[in-house]
């Protein structure tokens, strides 16, 4: 047992497992149903992964600093409601408003966490409740259909460019920008430092509070972007639209190999994780696993992935 955990603890093995798993899954799918990963179905796969990936990228930033964001599904739903509600009256301006709302609530989560010193999972559980209540209130508890008039501004999201779905391109842009931010900006380096060891980062003069707030702001913004895309794809906004996405998004981050303890991981790993989750989901539908039972698999996958990737030396007491 000890040997097994030693193998998993080696850095390069942790980095190599997710891509290997992805290749294995693709091979299984390809053998089970030849021609699956060509043309239209590949586009469909990428399109389906896009929203999950954008959500997961946002959470990646928060998990990298050693926190967690449990409010993403609420923020995404709120953004979808705002978009659906405002499209008829202010047209395309509804996009920046919806995404701005995500930014504001992200910053709010960050401030509650940092200034009031509330642990992040409670802080975001609470702001998630605040946001969910507001979404319910704006929508009066109903799903809002985006009418013909409003759909003019959203059709481009559902289109394709040279055979590639626009959503996949959007996700790629989000992914590349996030990757560059993490690797080449001061904030990105600080995030990793804070996640790797907060006291050391603090002693080295890193503005820990600001770094954390920015991470939560990014998470909120990306969650809102995901919510907007989801609303455009489904042509409706609803206060519970994204509720089913919290678990897959966190699972994607962890399965990709980002440690829940922070400081280790990145956007590229999350991309691999999101693809794994997507393929597993499609595979389950394909084998005939009941759609309601998918959550059972994701829950189990999450626990196993956390158990493998977690850095136990960093948490003396496991609470």
């Amino acid at each position, binding site marked *: 047992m000890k040997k097994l955990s030693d193998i998993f603890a080696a850095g390069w093995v942790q980095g190599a497992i997710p891509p290997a798993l992805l290749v294995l899954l693709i091979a299984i799918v390809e053998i089970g149903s030849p021609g699956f990963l060509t043309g239209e179905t590949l586009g469909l796969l990428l399109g389906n992964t896009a929203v999950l990936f954008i959500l997961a990228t946002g959470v990646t930033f928060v998990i990298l600093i050693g926190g967690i964001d449990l409010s993403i599904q609420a923020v995404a739903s709120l953004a979808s409601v705002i978009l659906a509600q405002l499209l008829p009256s202010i047209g395309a301006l509804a996009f920046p408003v919806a995404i701005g709302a995500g930014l504001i609530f992200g910053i709010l989560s960050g401030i509650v966490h940092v200034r009031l010193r509330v642990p992040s999972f409670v802080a975001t559980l609470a*702001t998630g409740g605040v946001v969910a*209540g507001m979404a319910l209130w704006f929508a009066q508890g109903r799903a809002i259909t985006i009418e013909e008039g409003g759909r003019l501004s959203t059709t481009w999201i559902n289109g394709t460019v040279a055979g590639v779905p626009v959503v996949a391109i959007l996700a790629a842009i989000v992914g590349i920008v996030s990757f560059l931010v993490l690797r080449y900006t001061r904030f990105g380096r600080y995030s990793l430092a804070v996640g790797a060891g907060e006291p050391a980062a603090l002693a080295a003069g890193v503005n820990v509070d600001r770094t954390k707030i920015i991470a939560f702001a990014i998470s909120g913004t990306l969650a809102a972007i995901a919510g907007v895309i989801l609303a455009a794809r489904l042509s409706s906004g609803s206060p519970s639209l994204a509720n089913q996405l919290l678990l897959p998004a966190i699972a994607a981050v962890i399965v990709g190999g980002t440690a829940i303890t922070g400081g280790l991981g990145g956007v590229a790993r999350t991309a691999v994780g999101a693809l794994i989750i997507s393929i597993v989901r499609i595979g389950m539908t394909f084998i005939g696993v009941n759609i309601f039972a998918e959550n059972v698999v994701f829950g189990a996958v999450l626990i196993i992935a956390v158990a493998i990737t977690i850095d136990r030396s960093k948490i003396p007491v496991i609470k």
Partner: protein
Amino acid sequence: MTINSETMKPVTNLERTSAMDAVFARFFRGEAARRLRTFAPLIVLVVLCILITIANPNFIELRNLIRIANSAAVPLTLAMGMTFIILMGSIDLSVEGALSIAAMVLVLLATNDANANDYGWLAVVAAIAASTAMGVLNGIIQTVLRIPSFMATLGVWFIGLGISVFMLGGSAIRLMDNSIRSLALERFLGLPLAVWVAAAAFLLAIVIQYHTRLGRHILAIGGGEDVAELSGVNLQRVRITAFGVAGFFFGVAGVLAAAQLGQSNAVIADGRLFAAVTAVVVGGTALTGGEGGVLNTLVGVLIVTVLANGMVLLGISPYVQQTVQGLMIIAAVALSLDRLRLKIVK
């Protein structure tokens, strides 16, 4: 970690002491202030009741008070279980999964409109046992795999929810066993039986916390795990038992919820986690563990329920309720955290 965080303290305090902390420190210092903090939730509850009564005298009517007791039954039972977990300094996010599992087992085994089962009160036992097993599973995952409870229980939350929705086939199944339904429909001394069950759960929780070794050990772990371990507390056994006890309470709550609703469906547990955490935290049990208890939680549940009832009486949209509860969590945690003990907040 090679860096000793003790020596970093001056830096930490310099960096972190905001104006707000200074204000908190002034208000919550000394013995008198400590006592004030202990009784703050109770004062909030009384003031809340007075304010709502002034705004709408209907609040104080016997009929409304019974309504409040009735709607507090399920949250109180849930929050009893949650209190023990938070007292340990952990969190159980699987409340909704455990509750829906219990409700699902109950309706599928008792008389219902989907199959021919008719196990009567055995179904209740099975439901509570299933939920307790989920709790034990939480404890085992946390202690054996050594992962933080919020991650372990996040996974179990969706495992439980997935299983119960799958077993229900995505639809609502009605509970038609009259003796179980009577929990919600029959009254004893004017109060529905569900309220008495919740009161019994509360008494049981009091006994566990104040009169059993388990209760003392839970407090000891929350107060300082390393010290507890050195004092000979079997951490793993206490943690697993505590999660099991929590699962038991969630199971009872699930039975009550199914009896009240007369059915079980995919959304029977929606919002329960939030209500339970709010109640525990608003009651004054510290998230850091080791401080507070089931008496605090009783006050917390009453605050949450009275506020929800008051908002309805005052004609405020019920949709805003979650928003208000969220703000309450933030305020309560911010006020109750023992800041000196927290060097790093994750």
